[in-house]
């Protein structure tokens, strides 16, 4: 059953067109990965879904209903949460306050609470009162993910959560994914780390210069295909 769908989705930054009609779907309980080179439009795609940039009113559909004209803060209330690129934690707020503010737009009761997030990422419990700029990259990423989870999302959009992190930390973070999925959340992963993306996802989309260049199941795609889709011929 399709949970989230984009239909001929376009997006602009001023006069510059970043997305040229993307058709993609996310099924309930699915995990999809979006890969592509820098500037391919992956982050723009997530921002468009999350409502941070303007998009056509029927470009994004949730449960079959168009949500493209809604503001970002309404989109959160519908159950779509974005873990932004670069973490973007609130520097004036402590770890715990960052998590709590994630629950500000909570759409309804759900599995995620402060306690539940702390059991997902135990290292944060010890640092609940510390300010966020002094945390390590991995810890900041955990806060960012936890913060998004606090709104009890049906769809979790993750923008490059492995960026700048050491492999062992990336493994830790991705190790939390199964628990997130177990609570019924569908996940969209934007990743530069193709290996990690292919391991975690049920399906993969490849973007190239604002267009879809490839889609399919990881096991069914050859290295050559991915290479060509990623870099273009």
């Amino acid at each position, binding site marked *: 059953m399709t949970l989230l769908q984009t239909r001929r989705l376009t997006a602009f930054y001023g006069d510059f067109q970043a997305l040229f009609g993307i058709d993609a779907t996310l099924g309930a309980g699915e995990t999809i990965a979006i890969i592509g080179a820098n500037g391919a439009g992956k982050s723009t795609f997530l921002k468009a879904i999350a409502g941070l940039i303007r998009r056509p009113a029927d470009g994004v559909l949730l449960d079959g209903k168009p949500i493209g004209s809604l503001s970002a*803060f309404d989109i959160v209330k519908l159950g779509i949460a974005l873990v932004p690129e670069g973490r973007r934690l*609130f520097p004036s707020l402590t770890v715990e*306050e960052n998590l709590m*503010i994630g629950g500000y737009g909570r759409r309804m009761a759900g599995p995620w609470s402060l306690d539940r997030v702390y059991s997902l990422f135990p290292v944060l419990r010890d640092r609940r009162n510390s300010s966020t700029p002094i945390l390590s990259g991995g810890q900041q990423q955990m806060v960012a993910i936890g913060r998004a989870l606090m709104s009890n999302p049906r769809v979790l959009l993750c923008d490059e959560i492995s960026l700048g992190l050491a492999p062992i930390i990336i493994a830790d973070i991705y190790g939390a994914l199964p628990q997130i999925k177990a609570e019924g959340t569908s996940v969209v992963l934007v990743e530069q780390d193709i290996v990690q993306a292919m391991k975690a996802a049920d399906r993969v989309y490849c973007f190239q210069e604002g267009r879809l260049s490839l889609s399919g199941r990881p096991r069914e795609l050859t290295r050559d295909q991915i290479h060509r889709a990623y870099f273009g011929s």
Partner: protein
Amino acid sequence: MTDWLNALTQGVLLGGLYALFASGLSLIFGVMRLVNLAHGDLIVLAAFVILFIAGKLGLDPFVAALCALPLLFIVGFALQHILLNRTLGRDLLPPLLVTFGLSIIIQNGLLEIFSADSQRLRSGAIETASFALGGGVAVGVVPVLTLLSAIAVIVLLNFFFYHTALGRAFRATSDDLEIAQLMGIDVNRIFSLAMGLALVVIGIAALYLGLRANFDPSIGPARLLYAFEAVIIGGLGSFWGTLAGGIVLGLAQTVGAQFDPEWQILSGHLAFLVVLVLKPRGLFPRALDGSGA
């Protein structure tokens, strides 16, 4: 000696009034990076509102102020919702010029309605009541109440900002507007609420303005300058810093007046300029961004 002790005491008490002026400004700038050039005129407007309510209903100014506060909240909310939210964005000019125009409108509107006559909030015996502090220094009850109110307002604002969900939302919005929206925060509503809150603080400031001295439609801009100076001296991002800034300003003025009464206001301005040159970020800065200095 007594003269100097007196000047210092009066300076601290005057600082309380300036801290009240400044708190509203600090709140608005903190949450939405808006410097409201009509801030001083809003204080004067609030004073006239209190005057009007006190007169029409035959109330004591303190009670009238209490009644005025909800009204002022609505005025602030509406002002932000209808007008000022439209000016916010990347460009500096619109909020500056729109609030400047607003300043002119408020001054002249008050002039038309109330005339240029000097007004005062009359509160009976409390106005002239005073008690001795020792060392030959006597302080008026109203100035002391002003300082205590300033401290109370700051304590309440800090509590609100740091121990409530809405306060958290204010801080998040101030940190990162875009990401705050991802938390389900309707930033435009937050701004309107913040302005409403600022008008409440302005209302309290207006009460003490009107009790301590005469006011008329034209004195707004000078209050803006004092509020601004207190904020800059104290440093951005901290309400307690604003109190400190107000007190430093008040002290500068009263000490200057000791040398020559005509130098009172000039001394305040000069102290501000000195702090600006030597410590551009203020005496107790907390803000994480460098805007303003």
